[in-house]
């Protein structure tokens, strides 16, 4: 493989990995703090992408659409937590699976009802629509670079919030001992609502910012959810650091596999996961 092509694939892999991290971090945060496995997490990715399509067309501004879509996602998160998830804290995994599968059904129906089943696309915002020449024939779109930078920025922001703020302290405490946090007088209900809303918003944000580089199709949420599971299983459930490392690993492996092993590409990351599980059943970073 040529050096410049290799570089482009590497950049693509990192960018895909960082996007996966955005989705996976929300999933693992919600699981780590609340002990809830949200299968509808991927649906929020899909809803984010469709919302930004809708509002970008309505307002003619991609950035305004991003803000509106994010806010709506957060409101949806609060509603779901307050009215549905709140009943699940004392139930087993099975009830969580069922309820969130029910949510997937509802989101999918809503998507096909509002936007139909034909593939849709969102234009890259004008500000970032140019490309960087790497060699005479190879170029790399600025928007993809922007995506990577944004995701790294969010990762650093999360790291800061979790390690240096009061909210982060409560999140860390919630991860290690939920009952104790409650006994110490922290309003755990509010904390859970905040964490859940932030978690689903991260997923929706990933859908929102990736909307210009993917096509919007039904089922896009489930595809992301499954990749996200692979990331979380490899990285260790509940570990945000693990999710970061695993997401980059999965992103890069998946991208190179689709170039080097075209027939096998869709299976590669699962083989990677199976391999890691044989040696480390709890994932690379046990939380």
């Amino acid at each position, binding site marked *: 493989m040529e050096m410049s092509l290799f570089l482009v694939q590497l950049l693509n892999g990192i960018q895909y990995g960082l996007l996966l991290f955005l989705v996976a971090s929300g999933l693992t945060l919600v699981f780590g703090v609340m002990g809830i496995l949200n299968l509808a997490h991927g649906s929020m990715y899909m809803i984010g992408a469709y919302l930004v399509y809708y509002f970008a067309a309505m307002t003619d501004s991609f950035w305004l659409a991003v803000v509106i879509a994010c806010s709506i996602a957060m409101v949806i998160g609060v509603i779901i937590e307050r009215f549905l998830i709140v009943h699940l804290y004392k139930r087993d*995994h099975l009830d969580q699976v069922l309820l969130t599968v*029910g949510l*997937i059904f509802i989101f999918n129906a809503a998507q*096909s009802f509002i936007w139909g089943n034909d593939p849709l696309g969102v234009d890259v915002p004008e500000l970032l629509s140019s490309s960087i020449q790497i060699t005479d024939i190879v170029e790399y779109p600025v928007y993809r670079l922007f995506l990577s930078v944004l995701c790294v920025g969010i990762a650093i922001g999360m790291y800061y919030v979790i390690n240096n703020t009061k909210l982060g302290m409560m999140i860390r405490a919630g991860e290690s001992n939920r009952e104790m946090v409650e006994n110490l007088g922290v309003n755990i209900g509010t904390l859970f609502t905040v964490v859940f809303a932030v978690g689903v918003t991260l997923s929706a944000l990933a859908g929102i910012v990736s909307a210009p580089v993917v096509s919007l199709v039904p089922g896009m949420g*489930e595809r992301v959810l499954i990749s996200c599971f692979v990331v979380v299983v490899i990285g260790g*459930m509940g570990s945000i650091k693990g999710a970061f490392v695993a997401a980059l690993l999965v992103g890069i492996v998946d991208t190179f596999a689709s170039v080097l092993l075209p027939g096998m590409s*869709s299976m590669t990351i*699962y083989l990677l996961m199976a391999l890691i599980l*044989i040696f480390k*059943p709890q994932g690379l970073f046990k939380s």
Partner: protein
Amino acid sequence: MSVFSSKAEKVFIFAFFFIALGIPLFFNENTFYVNKISTMLILSIFVMSLDYLVGRTGLITLGHAMFYGLGGYLFAIMIPEYEVVNFWLYTFYVMAASGVIALIVGFIVLRTSGIYMIMITLALAQMTFYFFADSTEYGGLDGLFIYLKPETSIFGLNFLDLDNENHFYYLCLLSLFNCYVFCKVSLHSRFGRVIDAIKENPERATALGYNIFHFRLVSYVLSSSLAAYAGYLFSLQYGFVNPTMMSWEVSASALVMAILGGLGTIFGAILGVFVYESLHYGIEHMTQYWMFWMGSLIILMVLLLKSGIAGLIEQLVGGKRK
């Protein structure tokens, strides 16, 4: 001790099989309904195998449809294209082959439990889904066709014609009955007692000297082979297999049916399938956005109905489960 866990189960099983025997006579020449009910009987086998694993062994899987699909695919791949094969022989081949696959998959999957197992089974099932969906050799998303139905002679006797809807219906009913008896007998045996103990308290079972990994693996293989058998019957009924059979929606709705019927009751699987599928057809008939109503129903069920329909019947008929 009675084989039935409760009076409700006894009443239900006798009533169900009694009515089911008469269905083709009742619908007479109307093969549409006989076919639909055959499909429900096949699904009941699938959901029952899932209940065996989730409700009794205590292992939650979201990838059981993988074996359902594999049952069909293994058959379609193994048969010679223009030759009539023997049904019983291929039943054995399909179940044995899927058992071997389940042994390997189980070895990986059962290293984990709880939330991890849910995610890994789902991921592996999706991997298999994409393997068949992307393959050109196995027909991609269109899948494979089964042109000739197998013949069913056994020791020179041939009393079933699979092209006849009523004959096929009785084959499905017999299969479901066998599956039910197999599940009950195996759960009633010493093996079943250990499985119950492991579900109740894995640490204590380990302390008593049982290797819980081995018991779970056996249960996983049995359940997966049954699921594959159901998929094999499904592929025979419709004459094709495609990757949709192993999509995550199939696994998820099977889980919903098992819970709707009452998890761990075995006979509840039949109830769950018939109620869910009837609702599904009913709602689909009225609106193309049936998923919305199905989703709402599932959420309501989780919030309100804690022990499924079987639990409801048991409350009405009386007689607690032992």
